[in-house]
């Protein structure tokens, strides 16, 4: 079982690399080096702040875009190219296919994030000339961004298991936006009354809470992130991704592929 999932994951990773997904790193490198050189000339005393904010935001957005646009095609492309039938005719179960695809894309995003992180730290070194102890929190922000990718990837896969690529992209992107305002959504729910309150609270807990995974602002201001939050966010991201994957497996198991 593990081997089969591993094979599907490594094939997904190889396919993503073949699809030139990692080319986004060039755009990222250009963005970071441009920002690092320009910011020192056009601003005063916020070079570090800009590099951290811009770098981490770019890592997050680039990754989310990759997670959505690759994620939505993971199932539909295999059906379109008829390669899915070849895979499933072997002793590979449908749930293994879904889980393998998830790990493949998650791995691609982790590698992508690793190279981008090098870019962020390089730009930071260029503008600050030396690292500070508080720069370590940037690693936590990057870790949270990877957790964010796990959630978005699982959602893209969930939508991809029953919908067209276009609609899947719309759904996944909408949930990403809503999830970024999840805390406000819970605030609105708390202000509602009666049945509306229950419905709003239910919806607020069902959408992904991506705002807690965004600590870019605070680490840019060299503020520490509590270990409790790191633990809770890790558990939450794994649970949410697990939930979305279970949904994808349930739908894909019953999907008529003829």
């Amino acid at each position: 079982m593990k081997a089969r999932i591993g094979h599907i994951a490594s094939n997904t990773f190889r396919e993503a690399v073949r699809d030139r997904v990692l080319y986004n790193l060039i755009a990222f490198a250009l963005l970071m080096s441009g920002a690092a050189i320009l910011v020192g000339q056009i601003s005063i005393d916020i070079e570090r702040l800009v590099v951290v904010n811009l770098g981490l935001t770019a890592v997050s957005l680039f990754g989310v875009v990759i997670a959505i646009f690759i994620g939505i095609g993971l199932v539909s492309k295999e059906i379109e190219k008829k390669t899915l039938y070849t895979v499933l005719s072997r002793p590979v179960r449908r749930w293994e296919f879904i889980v393998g695809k998830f790990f493949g894309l998650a791995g691609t995003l982790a590698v992508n994030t690793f190279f981008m992180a090098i870019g962020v730290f390089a730009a930071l070194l260029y503008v600050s000339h030396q690292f500070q102890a508080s720069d370590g929190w940037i690693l936590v922000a990057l870790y949270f961004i990877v957790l964010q990718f796990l959630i978005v990837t699982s959602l893209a896969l969930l939508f991809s298991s029953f919908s067209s690529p276009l609609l899947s992209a719309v759904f996944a992107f909408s949930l990403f936006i809503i999830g970024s305002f999840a805390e406000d959504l819970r605030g609105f729910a708390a202000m509602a009354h009666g049945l509306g309150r229950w419905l709003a609270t239910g919806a607020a807990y069902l959408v992904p809470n991506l705002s807690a995974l965004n600590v870019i602002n605070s680490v840019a201001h060299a503020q520490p992130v509590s270990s409790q939050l790191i633990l809770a966010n890790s558990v939450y991201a794994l649970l949410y991704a697990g939930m979305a994957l279970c949904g994808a497996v349930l739908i894909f198991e019953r999907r008529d592929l003829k």
Partner: protein
Amino acid sequence: MKPSSRITVIASGMLVVCLAASVVTLRKIDTIRKGATLEEVLYITSPKVLKRLSLGYNGLLADIYWTRAVQYFGRNFHDETGKYTLLAPLLEITTALDPQLIVAYEYGANFLAPAVPGGAGMPEQAIELTEYGIRNNPDNWRLYYDLGFIYYQDLKDYKKAAEAFERGSEVPGAHPWLKLLAALMAEHAGDIQTSRLLWTATYENSADKNIRANAAAHLRALQVDQDVPALEELASKYHERTGHWPGSFRELAEAGMIPGMPVDPLGKPYKLMADGRVVVGDPDDLPFIQKGIPEGYKPPPKPKVLPIE
């Protein structure tokens, strides 16, 4: 059981477990990150920058910021922290994003102006907020009323209060009270009757149950502040007449000085002390009273405002 059915059962079970556990974890995250969102959103403190960043969706963003302001005030009020440092910036951003959001001026001033623990104790910021509201909504007479009220109640600046009411009375469609209030401010600003009229106006003008309950509590307090000196004066007259203080209100009633047992606005009997002082039975239920407070009484950290029936 077929393998596919087994997978369905396992996946369904896992989905439910993950969903339940994620809700529990999220609630934990909320307690860890209490107030974190607000602190983070205020890294951008410039309303102008935020307006540009909203890409034209400033109405929605204003609603979000207004919700954050309400949540922030509500949480700090509930927790009795007495610290409201982010309230004024949140309201400033809200109203800059949507200058027509009247509710933010009305409630916002009501959050900012009253002294702690009833509010944030920032009447100056409340004045600024309301003046900004008036500049953007000059036809809304309620904002002038709010402005006058803050000057009267929280700053005791009766001249400015009179000016605000006067300005408001000139707005087409303004409530006739404003003219009357402007005149009262000029001559009888410190009177209980003036205060009563203002709180009555607030009570009748607002649809919000909390504001109405607060106004009702102030009206009850004014009644007590009027009753207690009157009863003490009667006790004093009794003392002058008989050479001793009345042992109870019954003696005053038997002497024909009061018609029966005097009660506070909540219907509870007043207490007559041995030295002729009059106190209320349950001061917790009558916040804001100035008279009739029992000796050694310590008010609760947060005023107990009774809900309106």
